[in-house]
């Protein structure tokens, strides 16, 4: 294991940011720390980097106990949400910073900077100042700067959080390809479940300072450990005593299966190819169902239609822990 976090607790005044967190992050993989804002995931990343210190617990990186090491001795690369570029230095100087600190020979530094700028497609900008770059370019520069020191682990704190949706998506794919090329152990923090599902090999779901679940994207989506994980990775609704995804509910206009729940369609909303139904069951529960436009039309669903709902075969179903909520 590349990074081992054992029993880490961190409080800010009365607020418990991390509550006895234990997690091991494997070598060479791209791991996402996923969770809602304020859930402690950035704090965990900063503790791994040494930018914050844990109240209790230990962090070891590649088998070395790093708990007491200052950030500059941990050999980690860190990429910040707001880039943290060195404003008074050119792009090339920014990338060279870590190497110059390490007193590497000049020609070696120049060669490495060249190579990295090529990797992040910024070669033609090497003499510009960061203020002349776009947000996406600045973040790629920051990534090159972090990679320059050949870190044991690369840590990214909401790296695409400050970028617009389109650039975000491009950089996300690019990060995945970059990771396949350089294969350094990478951990990134995100609150965007789509980003985590798309990019990561492994996802650690963190909420209210605790690790809720660790697993591959498929495991998390198909076998959520609890209703929080299930709810965070996609839409959920309650059907009788269970929680499941709205697109995993089968709708029929006749009571074909035993155990089907009877209800009336109370609202129909169409968004492109998708149709969202609110169904009020005879027990007074409001269930959300999503189906395709074609399917909905073939069933002839309109408001006030009486329908029977059953979980689809193979649906992910967990017992609902909360009282039946709306939606």
């Amino acid at each position, binding site marked *: 294991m590349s990074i081992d976090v054992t029993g880490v607790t961190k409080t800010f005044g009365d607020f418990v940011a991390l509550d006895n967190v234990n997690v091991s992050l494997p070598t060479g993989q791209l791991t996402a720390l996923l969770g809602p804002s304020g859930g402690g995931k950035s704090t965990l990343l900063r503790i791994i*980097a*040494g*930018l914050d210190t844990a109240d209790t617990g230990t962090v070891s990186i590649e088998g070395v106990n790093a708990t007491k090491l*200052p*950030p*500059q001795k*941990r*050999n*980690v*690369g*860190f990429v*910040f949400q*707001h*880039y*943290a*570029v*060195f*404003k*008074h230095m050119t792009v090339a100087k920014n990338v060279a*910073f*870590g190497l110059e*600190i*390490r007193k590497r020979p000049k020609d070696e530094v120049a060669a490495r900077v060249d190579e990295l700028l090529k990797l992040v497609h910024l070669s033609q900008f090497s003499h510009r100042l960061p203020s002349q770059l776009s947000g996406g370019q600045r973040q790629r520069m*920051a990534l090159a*700067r*972090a990679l*320059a*020191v050949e870190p044991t682990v690369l840590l990214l704190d909401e790296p695409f959080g400050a970028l617009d949706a389109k650039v975000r998506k491009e950089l996300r794919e690019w990060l995945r390809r970059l990771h396949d090329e350089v294969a350094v152990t990478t951990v990134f923090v995100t609150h965007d479940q789509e980003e985590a599902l798309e990019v990561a090999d492994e996802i650690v779901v963190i909420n209210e300072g605790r690790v809720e679940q660790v697993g591959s994207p498929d495991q998390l989506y198909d076998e959520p450990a609890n209703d929080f994980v299930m709810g965070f990775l996609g839409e959920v609704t309650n059907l009788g005593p269970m929680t499941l995804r709205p697109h995993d509910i089968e709708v029929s206009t006749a009571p074909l299966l035993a155990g089907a729940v009877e209800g009336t369609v109370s609202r129909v909303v169409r968004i492109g190819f998708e149709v969202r139904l609110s169904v009020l069951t005879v027990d007074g529960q409001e269930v959300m169902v999503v189906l395709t436009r074609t399917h909905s039309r073939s069933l002839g669903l309109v408001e006030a239609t009486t329908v029977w709902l059953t979980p689809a075969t193979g649906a992910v179903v967990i017992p609902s822990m909360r009282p039946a909520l709306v939606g």
Partner: protein
Amino acid sequence: MVKVSTPVRWLLRVIAVGYVFFLVAWPVSLVAIRTFEDGTEDFFGIFTDPNTVGALQLTLMVALWAVAINLVFGVTISLLLVRYEFPGKRVLSALIDLPLSVSPVVVGLALLLVFSGRTGWFGPSIEEAGWQVIYDSPGMIMATCFVALPLVIREVVPVLTEIGDDQEQAARSLGANGRQTFLRITLPSIKWAVIYGVVLSLARSLGEFGAVKVVSGNITGRTQTATLIVEAKYQNFEQTTAYSVAFLLAFISIACLIVVAFLRPQHEEA
């Protein structure tokens, strides 16, 4: 912006310009006029009087020391105030503004109470150790430091706050230690604010009168600074010399202001 009618606008302009003219421009220009009333001879004459030359040298020495000390402590205290949390931080911040509101004479008297060789709280013991503070340059440098203390800090603190500590953290994660981070990242970012603060401190230090007068003892030829000699000469009916030295002081201050005005646009860009 609210529209103001033309006559009102003109009235406001006349009031503003008139106020500055009668309060600042006219009196200061009179000093220059008096200085050069009989040609440049009187002005350059001050450089032949050993007491005046000594006073100017002393002023420069005291000012440079005070600026150097305030530079080091100013930047350090600014970093402390912006980057660290500690009990008493707000008190420290308020204390730093004290020299702006307290009369320099009070500062001088306060220093006298602590360091005076005969009656001071601390003075006799350091005098025994061979250190003369009051009626000598250490006391004058201290007094000047005190009055110029907030100038560097008040310039640097807002800039440090604005740039945040992201860049410093990035430098740390890239392997830089505290000293390297300060020299390579923090200092270049606050460079213009520091220069601006230094220029202001220098102007303030050269012109300090009240505090220095109290602690220096105003001994002619030994602890008399340029501002003190202006007063002494004026009272001794050597008006021309007084005007000449006064003009020199005003000239240096204006030169400082021009330098500042020249630096300002770059300072705002950075």
